[in-house]
């Protein structure tokens, strides 16, 4: 039986986040019209780290919001029970802003579709970009691709990507690939 396999650990993750920040600076310069939206529940930790890193690199302030997609999902009433929502905190209007949507794992793309639907409640963005720490290749249900990627991985439907953040109480950051029957 296959054990869980480490995809990224703390030091490597630090390097990856730094690289993602540099790529963002290439595109967004001083972030004058750019806002960050972290996707609940686990994308917000990555979003906060990227925001902190960018702010210390550039000595600027970047608006950040948390977006919850529960009420916008397309699988309501197709599950046995409704999903519990997390808080949405978007303390600004995204009208005419460039939005960087951040999540930890990109899999089927359905959450991202829901997130694009959800963000429209806060205005019409000029442009939306997607940043994912882990891109599970060849597993998309929808025509959605990320603009910035931490790590591409090939996965099977029977596998799961597990992200552990220090902010959630883990000893250190880890990203694992796990076979579902081992869970």
């Amino acid at each position, binding site marked *: 039986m296959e054990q869980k396999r480490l995809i990224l650990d703390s030091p490597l993750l630090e390097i990856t986040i730094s690289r993602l920040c540099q790529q963002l600076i290439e595109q967004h310069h001083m972030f004058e019209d750019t806002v960050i939206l972290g996707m609940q529940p686990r994308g917000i930790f990555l979003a906060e780290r990227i925001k902190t890193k960018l702010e210390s690199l550039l000595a600027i302030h970047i608006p950040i919001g948390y977006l*919850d997609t*529960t*009420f*916008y*999902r397309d699988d*309501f*009433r*197709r*599950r*046995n*029970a*409704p*999903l*519990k*929502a*997390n*808080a*949405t*905190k978007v303390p600004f*209007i995204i009208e005419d802003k460039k939005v960087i949507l951040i999540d930890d794992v990109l899999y089927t793309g359905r959450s991202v579709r829901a997130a694009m*639907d*959800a963000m*429209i*409640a*806060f*205005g019409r963005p000029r442009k939306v970009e997607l940043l994912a720490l882990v891109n599970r290749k060849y597993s998309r249900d929808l025509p959605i691709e990320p603009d910035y990627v931490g790590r591409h991985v090939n996965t099977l439907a029977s596998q799961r990507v597990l992200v552990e953040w220090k902010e959630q109480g883990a000893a250190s950051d880890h990203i694992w690939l796990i076979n579902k029957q081992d869970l």
Partner: protein
Amino acid sequence: MQQLSSRHLLGIKGLTPEDIELIFETADTFKEVINRPIRKVPSLRDVTIANIFFENSTRTKLSFELAEKRLSADVVNFSSSNSSVKKGETLLDTVNNILAMKVDMVVIRHSSPGAPHFLARHINANIINAGDGTHEHPTQALLDAYSIREKHGSVAGKKVAIIGDILHSRVALSNIFALQKLGADVMVCGPNTLLPKYIAHLGVKVELDVKKALQWCDVANVLRIQLERQQIKYFPSLREYALYFGINKRLLDSLDKKITIMHPGPINRGVELSSDVADSEHSIIMNQVENGVAIRMAVLYLLAGTSNEKKQVNK
């Protein structure tokens, strides 16, 4: 993933404290939604809801309808005053006809206690009780307890006095159940004739002096005198009721503490509450109305999600 223990909301009596807490936590997220620039989410876009009101209502009906529309449900309204009920159709026939038009959820208000329970036994939609006679009015009790939680941080350990026409009030009974399940201390107060005979058996304190009740409580939930349900005279006159049980600013000022005033509406100004109390900073009546929409969105969302599609397919 969490869900309610029932696929209907018939009364507070059938809910667990965990159910109530889940509804409150879900209502928190919907309260944020209804304060956004765009106050609408698409969750219930493939759900059709019938609001069936056999009794008059302004607030509850509006509140349910707004909650349904903010969840993007399709809504049909029915009220008995302009329907075939007048022509002698039975409750079950009326509702079955509406269901034959493919309705997923039914919100019902009826003058007979148990009408929603009767429907839940006979039809396959999710049923929400919006008031059945003098029995229960669960969403009102949920929004009342939610408003107390919002104002005071929690419901547990709070002293709540329910004052007025307890005998004819479905709000009183649902409130007693909800508050007790959440760990509050409950007192009822009113003229002896308007207190049900065995009310103390529910584990509530009984008080006949409104000043003592106010002195005891942290929150006073003041109920309307329901003249339309009173077949006989329970007190000599409204003027006398206002004199002995009406709450005015002078009475509140005479207490050595500040209490919160609630009212489920509609208010009979000058009878159970004077205007200088209803519109004062003591009152959270308008917060109750706002919270009503969030609570009803939470209930609709949680119940719609638990409706068992597989069961419907197998049938």
